[in-house]
């Protein structure tokens, strides 16, 4: 008989380690349900959830929508591209209008950091952050840590290297918070231009040489180069980036141990990750996607249960 300490999932920063543990234990149950012939439970049958995506998404949106449907919630979708936002409506007006149609929960992705925090102060519904700008992407971090726990038995004491575009990545920040709360050691690795200046203050190791990072870690979480967020050039060319930071089979063969490779998707094949690694037995990329639905079911279920 436990519940989360928060009504909203805005970021990993607000969660306690026991919250994360509760989400994982609940996700175990949902993963079991997802492997049954009938993959559906009626828990949220009296709840309506709005998926509000002000930014593009395939995986996260599909994953949330599936999770909602597996829990029997009613789902409405909203994509800013085809909406009145284009006509100049403000965020809070858009959301209040949606809530006037009696929606209980809002899953939101927005390009501005802090947008879900702002909303949570002004509206009554439970809010789940599905990514806010370069700030946090809590469900991704939860499913990453859940996948590590599944693959290696535990997260505590493991060494995780986050490699690539740390500066523009919300996945990186959420992952750092989540892994540290669970007792893992975290290293970030990338070209100096793509590492935030004071990242070491978060208590992470910083490494510029990808081979050294791989040699150190048990798990490598490889991030996508987010070209859409880069208004200036942070490195000379994609080809040069992939030469220095791309992870391929050859590089992994040079290590004196086996490591687990993760990627939050979508992969730029041949840039940060080569196909010979992405499709190998080292990679748990598709397991991450599978676990994503279970984690999101757990988050929605637990938030709905908070009084």
């Amino acid at each position, binding site marked *: 008989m436990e519940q989360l300490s928060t009504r909203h999932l805005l970021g990993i920063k607000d969660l306690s380690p026991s919250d994360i543990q509760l989400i994982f234990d609940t996700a175990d149950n949902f993963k079991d349900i997802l492997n049954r012939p009938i993959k559906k439970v*009626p828990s949220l049958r*009296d709840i309506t959830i709005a998926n509000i995506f002000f930014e593009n998404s395939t995986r996260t949106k599909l994953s949330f929508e599936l999770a909602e449907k597996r829990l029997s919630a009613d789902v409405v979708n909203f994509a800013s591209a085809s909406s009145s936002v284009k006509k100049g409506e403000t965020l809070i007006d858009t959301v209040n209008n949606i809530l006037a149609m009696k929606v209980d929960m809002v899953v939101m992705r927005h390009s501005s950091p802090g947008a879900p925090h702002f909303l949570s102060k002004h509206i009554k519904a439970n809010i789940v952050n599905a990514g806010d700008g370069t700030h946090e992407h809590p469900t991704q971090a939860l499913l990453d840590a859940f996948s590590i726990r599944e693959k290696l038995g535990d997260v505590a004491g493991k060494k995780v290297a986050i490699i690539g575009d740390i500066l523009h990545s919300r996945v990186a920040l959420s992952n750092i918070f989540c892994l540290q709360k669970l007792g893992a050691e975290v290293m970030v690795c990338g070209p100096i231009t793509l590492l935030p200046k004071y990242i070491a203050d978060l208590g992470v190791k910083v490494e510029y040489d990808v081979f050294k990072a791989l040699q150190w870690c048990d798990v490598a979480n490889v991030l996508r180069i987010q070209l859409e967020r880069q208004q200036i050039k942070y490195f000379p060319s994609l080809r040069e980036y992939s030469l220095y930071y791309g992870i391929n089979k050859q590089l992994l063969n040079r290590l004196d141990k086996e490591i687990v490779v993760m990627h939050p998707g979508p992969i730029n094949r041949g840039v940060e990750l080569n196909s010979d690694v992405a499709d190998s037995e080292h990679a748990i990329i598709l397991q991450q996607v599978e676990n994503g639905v279970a984690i999101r079911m757990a988050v929605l279920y637990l938030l709905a249960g908070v009084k």
Partner: protein
Amino acid sequence: MIENHDDFNNTVLLGLQPRGALVLDKIIQRMQEIQHITLKYGYLDATFHRDDFRRRDLPLRANETKIDFLIENKKVVLVDDVLYKGRSVRAAMDAMIAFGRPQKVELMVLIDRKFTRDFPVQPDYCGRQVNTLESQYVSVEWQSRGFEKDAIWITEKESN
């Protein structure tokens, strides 16, 4: 139950998590001893099918469901410890359907609290019927769970 199910060839037993599972373990053990029958059984958790989600003070924590077979065309005996309002059994029947369409479903309980039902649910097999008040609580203690001995208590609920 032995009279009704012969050699238990087409019968499966499902213990309702968490406490029905303990009753089931005991039954499995006794059946081995007296009939030398190995029963097919599993544990069913109905937490996500309950009708009191978001209506009770604290959410219930889910337990493991462990059923590695389909119940299509099987005779199912649901096993629980105390039958009170009948709501858990309703949720269990709902949860059970995810594993197939059973031929027949029966209910076995250790204790049947008479006159307390919210749903039209009656046990087919029952250890003992007791008359209790709403203000009372029936608890089942198991030696295997660290209690001194197997025991059933009727106690007054603590008034806050």
